[in-house]
């Protein structure tokens, strides 16, 4: 019974979510096409900035874009 409930719940969630109208309609998303609405508008600059911090701070991971390499000291 527990499996049935879980099965129905997950399938129901998926299908409901798929068939439900998105609360922000496609024609209301014009602002997201604007380049200024980006966490890292210029990938080459974001990668460099992350690299600067990764080489000088103890924390790493979950950056807005992936850095790379060592570049220590």
């Amino acid at each position, binding site marked *: 019974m527990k*499996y049935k409930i*879980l*099965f129905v719940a*997950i*399938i129901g969630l*998926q*299908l409901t*979510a*798929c*068939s*439900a*109208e*998105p*609360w*922000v309609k*496609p024609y*209301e*998303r014009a*602002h*997201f096409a*604007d*380049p*200024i*609405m*980006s*966490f890292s*508008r*210029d*990938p*080459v*600059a974001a*990668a*460099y*900035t992350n690299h*600067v*911090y990764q080489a*000088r*701070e*103890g*924390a*790493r*991971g*979950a*950056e*807005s874009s*992936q850095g*790379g*390499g*060592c*570049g*220590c*000291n």
Partner: protein
Amino acid sequence: MPGVPKAVRVAVVGVTDRALNKSSLCYRNRCIKQRLITRRILFRILVITLSTLGVLVPLLAAVLPEDRADVLYHSYDGGGIEVTGPSILWRKMIGKYNSVMANYYIDAISSASIDVITSASPYSEHRTEKSVGLTSINEATTMNLAYTTSSENDYDAQSAHIGFSHDLFGDLTTVSLGYSRGWDEVGKSGDPTFAEDADRQNYRLGFSQILTKNSLIGLDFETITDEGFLNNPYRSVRYLDATSALGYSYEPEVYPRTRTSNAVAIRALYYLPYRAAIRGEYRLYTDTWDINAQTFGLGYTHPLEKDWILDFRYRYYTQTHADFYSDLFPFQQSQNFLARDKELSSFNDQTIGIGISYEFSPQNPTFIDKGSLSLNYDHIRFDYDDFRDLTVVTAPGQEPAYSFSADTVQFFLSIWY
């Protein structure tokens, strides 16, 4: 099942019917019943897993990155270290469903940092990093593959990455998964017999969600595990030594050979009523070396007329020191693991940055759709709590806490074609 493609509907209904029909045999044969129960459970697990991963949801449109090339010059100057070099990033669609990228990056390093001038000699070196990648889309799913090599005279690194992202719920939600594996080879200048390895693995899970027609949030988790030789072979720790004129002496650092870290970050973007954007970021970090860190960031993007974009940003970072870090150990080999690397000390840094970008649409050559010239400047201030400035000679442990400022400049040309 409205909204589900017909082929998927048929597959799900067909498999479900077959499983239910076979269940009637359970009354006649206990063995068959056991097998069918097992199959049904496996089927349910399969469906639940596929459902959870979004495989059965309607497939929607993902978008490939734009065809774009960037040529960047970067400069870092602070704390006795100068790093300059170019970075060239190129991306091009191949057909409708694939995009390839390549990146070539150089760090030309000249170092006379506080660590170097107090316990070693200034040096210069080059690091060259090369990356290639492939992005493929299949309806709502995007796959990323990348391979990177990094080479210095005493350090070589390779890494491979695979990642998937999938758009859900009418493209309002994007879920992404990523895995990277890295292989480092550590050498030591002047000691050809020194050769160590370090293996690294990154696991990344991300969500982004459109909240309203003006706002977007992102949530990212990343776990990184390292195993192998993780310290810098040139660095030393100091310990009290009454026989030394300075009152202290040096011995090599010794780090644990494993490290696991977890980071979670939440980011938000909001489109203001007058075509400008404001963004915020918070990251929480912890690892098995007992470093706990937090990062706060704020940014504001303001277009001027139609061709200019201004960026303003502020970032604050703070961390606690690793549990085997000390600025001054009480005696030689006083513990199993020893570190005096300032990146492992307690400190904070603050960044104030500004960026300006000019967009243009050249008439020639005709294959260029648009271009931009950008200049970014950031000023970073580092203030250490328990890393002392040994250029000031006084009683050991009484030196002032170290601090320095750094400036970074990025100037780059971008073209879209």
